[in-house]
């Protein structure tokens, strides 16, 4: 179906917008969320929900750029709440079952990847978000400040403290550049 058939006076149709944005950004948005929530299945849920929400708000967005901005914001916000929810669930699980939990270890090749994702989880929400937006999405401090609703000065502070903490947490993974 030619895209133009969906162009009405208000621009793209919501369904077409979802398909186009999915094709262009699904993978990258899931990866963004993985850095924020650690777990891939949770990240996919988060981004799927963000797309569904974006579809519902299309009449207000009406523009692929705005929709992408909305998606990124939704992924950051929803990742934060998914993480909080999961922390609560995991805390419950830990206190409910004593000693019988087994956690699959990372493969040797993925060990550094896993170390990085785990280290990210131990940062504060803001430090993690600032580092990921700055270094994974390559956003400017002003863009991050706007997206997170914090001042550019606060972005700088979180970035500095987050970087230092990450370096500390990663130890030899940080030093070994192989």
């Amino acid at each position, binding site marked *: 179906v030619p895209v133009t058939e969906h162009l009405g006076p*208000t621009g793209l149709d*919501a*369904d077409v917008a*979802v*398909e186009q944005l*999915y094709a262009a950004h*699904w*993978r990258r948005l*899931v*990866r*963004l969320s*993985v*850095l924020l929530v650690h777990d*891939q299945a949770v*990240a*996919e849920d988060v*981004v*799927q*929900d963000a*797309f*569904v*929400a974006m*579809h*519902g708000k*299309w*009449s*207000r967005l009406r523009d692929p750029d705005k929709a992408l901005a909305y998606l990124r*914001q*939704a992924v950051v*916000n*929803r990742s934060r709440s998914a993480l909080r929810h999961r922390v609560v669930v995991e805390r419950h699980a830990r206190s409910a079952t004593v000693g019988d939990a087994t956690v699959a270890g990372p493969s040797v090749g*993925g060990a*550094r*990847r896993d170390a*990085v*994702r785990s280290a*990210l989880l131990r940062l504060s929400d803001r430090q993690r978000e600032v*580092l*990921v937006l700055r*270094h*994974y999405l*390559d956003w*400017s401090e*002003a*863009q991050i*400040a*706007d997206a997170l*609703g*914090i*001042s*550019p*000065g*606060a972005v700088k502070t979180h970035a500095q403290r987050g*970087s230092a903490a*990450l*370096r500390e947490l*990663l130890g030899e*993974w*940080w030093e070994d*550049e192989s």
Partner: protein
Amino acid sequence: MSERITDLLHEAADGVEPGDRLDAIRAATARTRRTGPGWWAAGGVGLVAASVVVALVLGTGGSPRVAGPDPADSPSPSPTATDPVPAPTVHPVPSESADGAATAVYYVGETPDGPRLFREFRWIQAPDRFSAAIDALESDPTDPDYRTYWHRAVDDVSFDGVGADGLIQVRLVDGSFRSRPAGMDEVTAWIAVQQVIYTLQAVVQARAPVQFLSAGGPVDQVLGVATSEPLAAGEVLETLAHVSISDPLEGQVVDNDEPFTVRGVGNSFEGNIVTRIERLSGVVEVVAEEPAIAGTYEDRLFPFEVTFDLTTVPPGDYLVISRTDDPTGAERFHVDDRRITIVD
């Protein structure tokens, strides 16, 4: 150091190959295809027969409350509909109790007319009535559609005098809020300053002017907005969103056995505010829709209230959406929404 983090994050993320969720997303959005954007144009036509409509028009005196939660066990302040609202103010009279009172905190959100203020309610405890409001102003709003510009911004607030004769003084943390940050336009900066003014005026329940201070005294500008003199609140219809939901709260759990009342304030063409409930998570569908009469013309927001019967609505996550009317057909609606969870 910076490059090392970039490399590590890309290595950690770029190995991830996401599964395909396009079909799941299509399924979840499929139902809206049938109703489409037409709802916005269709106005207040009820799609599902649903219950009582209570229209509150200010000035009729009464606030017929259909079914409200017991204030003792409900977190919802619902001050606009339960209390008579003094005409000249947009601020709701807080519902008071022994532990404190609810106050409105204003956050920035988007409307077709640019950024405007929306409000959420917070519980404030005596004796320090400012600290909870400042805490709220400095932290993220409950509703992810809103934002605040005042993280770690305010050192101290004081209010001297009585009512509008008093002066609210706000001392900011340091000079970092003086100039307008890159990427923030003038309108947004002005709205952000109004965010502080409206929130603090709500706390003191008076339209008292606000003086911004730094350590040394009055500060000449905040976010690039001139602040040498005390500032007044902007005109309501130029500053606030034209619809703002008070009840339910974001994320509220609602029992479908109880009549469900949506309350808020608005100003709309012919007073029409339309509220609908949409199902989320899985299938998006409209389960109920009701019009209400708020008000129009004057420079203020009028309370509105609608009640839904949810007894046939299955448990799940829903979106409550209230919007203004637009007689021009250009669909320039002001909209506010809340996510709720309906339970049996």
